[in-house]
């Protein structure tokens, strides 16, 4: 596999739900990059992520994940990515280890490697003391952390997260952010959407802003600032997404 190919390449991506949700979107995310996808409500962020993860089929355009055409070889592409939606995909009647074992099974991870990785993740996320409880009794933050552990248990190269910090307290949010930065430091790629602009400002190496399904701006924070002559990311974001 050619390691110089981007982690994600979208070209002319289109998805229509009566009105265009994603409208000819083109985007390139490099390997080892922390990329934040921002946009106002209804801009098409979640639809884009669901297209990239294969949950939705595009009406037009192409999606290339780590050099693999998603439409041509979906299983090969999915094996290398993980997706964390805004609502954690959990089973209330499973315990954390049971959940992680199931997820590892779905991704075909070797049992010994999966077990060690699961223990490491649960320890890191302070979930080990709750390893013998059903997840239905977990708080929102604990569920989100367990879902993140599930996303990381197969050590994905590309991690895609939709609003991962919503509803988390400061300590949990810090743990999640540290984990994401560690993933990037190890050479992994992170793409996340968030409404908390400070998160994008502090973590992301590049930021893409979409509105009405189209990419309207992209670059580092400095590049975006220079383009709009704005101050904080919030100022830049509001300037760029203001309705004409």
């Amino acid at each position, binding site marked *: 596999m050619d390691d110089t190919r981007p982690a994600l390449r979208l070209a002319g991506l289109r998805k229509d739900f009566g009105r265009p949700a994603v409208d000819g979107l083109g985007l390139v995310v490099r390997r080892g990059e922390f990329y934040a996808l921002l946009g106002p409500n209804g801009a098409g962020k979640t639809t884009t992520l669901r297209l990239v*993860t*294969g*949950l939705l*089929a595009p009406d037009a355009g192409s999606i290339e994940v780590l050099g693999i055409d998603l439409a041509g070889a*979906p*299983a*090969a*592409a*999915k*094996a290398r*990515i*993980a*997706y964390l*939606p805004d*609502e*954690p*995909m*959990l*089973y*209330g*009647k*499973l*315990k954390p*280890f*049971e959940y992680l*074992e*199931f*997820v*590892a*099974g*779905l*991704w*075909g991870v070797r*049992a*010994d490697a*999966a*077990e060690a990785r*699961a223990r490491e993740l649960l320890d890191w996320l302070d979930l080990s*003391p*709750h*390893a*013998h*409880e*059903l997840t*239905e*009794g*977990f*708080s929102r933050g604990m569920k989100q952390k367990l*879902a993140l552990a*599930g996303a990381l248990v197969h050590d994905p190269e590309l991690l895609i997260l939709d609003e991962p910090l919503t509803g988390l307290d400061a300590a949990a949010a810090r743990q999640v952010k540290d984990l994401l930065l560690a993933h990037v430091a190890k050479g992994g790629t992170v793409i996340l959407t968030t409404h908390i602009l400070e998160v994008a400002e502090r973590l992301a190496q590049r930021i893409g802003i979409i509105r009405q399904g189209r990419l309207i701006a992209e670059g580092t924070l400095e590049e975006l600032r220079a383009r709009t002559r704005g101050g904080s990311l919030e100022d830049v974001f509001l300037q760029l997404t203001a309705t004409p």
Partner: protein
Amino acid sequence: MNAAPGGVGWLLRHELRLAWFNAAGGKEGAGKRRPGNAAGGKEGAGKRRPGNAAIALALAGWAALHLLAWVTVENTAAVAGDDPRILLAIAAMVAAGATFMLSSAIKSSVLVLFERSDLDLLLSSPLPSHSIFAVRLAGVAASTAAIYLFFLAPFAHAGLLQGQWRWLGIYPGVISVAVLCSCLAMLLTLGLVRVLGARRTRVVAQVIGALAGALLVIASQLQSLSSGPTQGRMREMLGDLLRQDGVADNPLLLPARAILGEPLPMLLLAGAAAVVFVLTARRTHRFFAQGLQLAASATRTRAAPAAARRHRFGRSLFKAVVVKEWRLIVRDPHLLSQVLLQLLFLLPLFFIMFKRSDVQVQAVGAGLALLCSSLTGALAWVALSAEDAPDLLLVSPASLRTVRRAKLAAAIMPVLAVVAAPLLWLSVRMPAAGLAICIVVCGAVAGAGLIVFWCGRPGLRSNFKGRGKGGFVMNMLEMFNSLAWGALGWGLAGAMRGALSNEGWLGILGGSALAVIVLGTGWLLRVKRS
């Protein structure tokens, strides 16, 4: 009662309006499905106002009930209300109705006290807190009584128009029983929530309701289930009871006498309901003042057992899916009770067939085929259609075909395990008939599983009872699959015992043809999955 905004009347109106919306929504999580949140489906999700068509249909049904009531009241004008037989029959109906009332009132109590999440708002308002709980209890009682009044009030109206005043006892009788059941339910809920938490209390209420329903079906079949001598003994006992002096004055018959319009019992029942209502409202208020709500909503954390078994990974994808499905079913007592209780409804039929010694083996063949088909259909729906995290499976690289086959296996294996012992016993006693029944049971199980595998559409576990509404075709196929294999079981088992009549051969041929047609139709109508 003050009807101005902020008054008790105003609050009661608000409470009744919520109960009305809730009655229309009926099912939990009937709204848009959100991936990943199915397990925690909060009451209230997907609730909507009753539609105009539903209201029109209910009104038309109510009008038809009035006609039926008119005729009934007219024809029973000569029947004396104090006849012990009538009193006993009404008392039995009140007892059965009260069990259902208790079940639905516990569910309503859990909803209004712990799940609706508006108590903090109300308690932080200037409304007197005693009034809030009194209104809440009144709302539970009203929603509990409503369905019974819907069916019984037409008789009261017909009695009023025909000058038979005793029928008017239906109103105070039903309302008083509903109030008493609601008070008992509220107190039970407060106690159970303290011990079990709100979620499990709700499960307890649902299990009580399901058990009451199943027992009622079995009780209704008691006559036909009993042997001739037992029936005679039962009639004798009932006769003795009715001949006893003062049986009509038994306090247990008070609600029945109140419903039949006797003034003093009516007054006593209504008085008792009023006193219990006031005491319960006060008690509820005191529980909440002591912080019950916080205790109930607190996350129940359990310390890890000191010698907890270390969880070992090492299953293949197929095994992991099978074990996951089994865990999800076994750990959901409400779902499990619903799956198993539907078998309870089939038992009377099975016993009726089994009573006749000349067709015992045939009855076993047909009964096992029906039971296994029904149980497999239910489990297959849970495993295949009611996946809690469908997106997780879709974003994974795992083969959907492997996952779905594992789910099908997870549904089939427990059923075969359950019937393995009786089939083995039968095969040892009657090898030919036993083998035939084994084949039939395997066919019924495979057929029921494949129908859901091919034609099942996504649903929510919490909506197990309403799964029939989600796929008419699948349900018809499941029903015909059961019938086909039931007929085959009857016919083949009979054929192994000796010469079979023409009807028996017709049953075998018809059953075989129907089984093939059902499977063929299921395959042709299979849902395409990417």
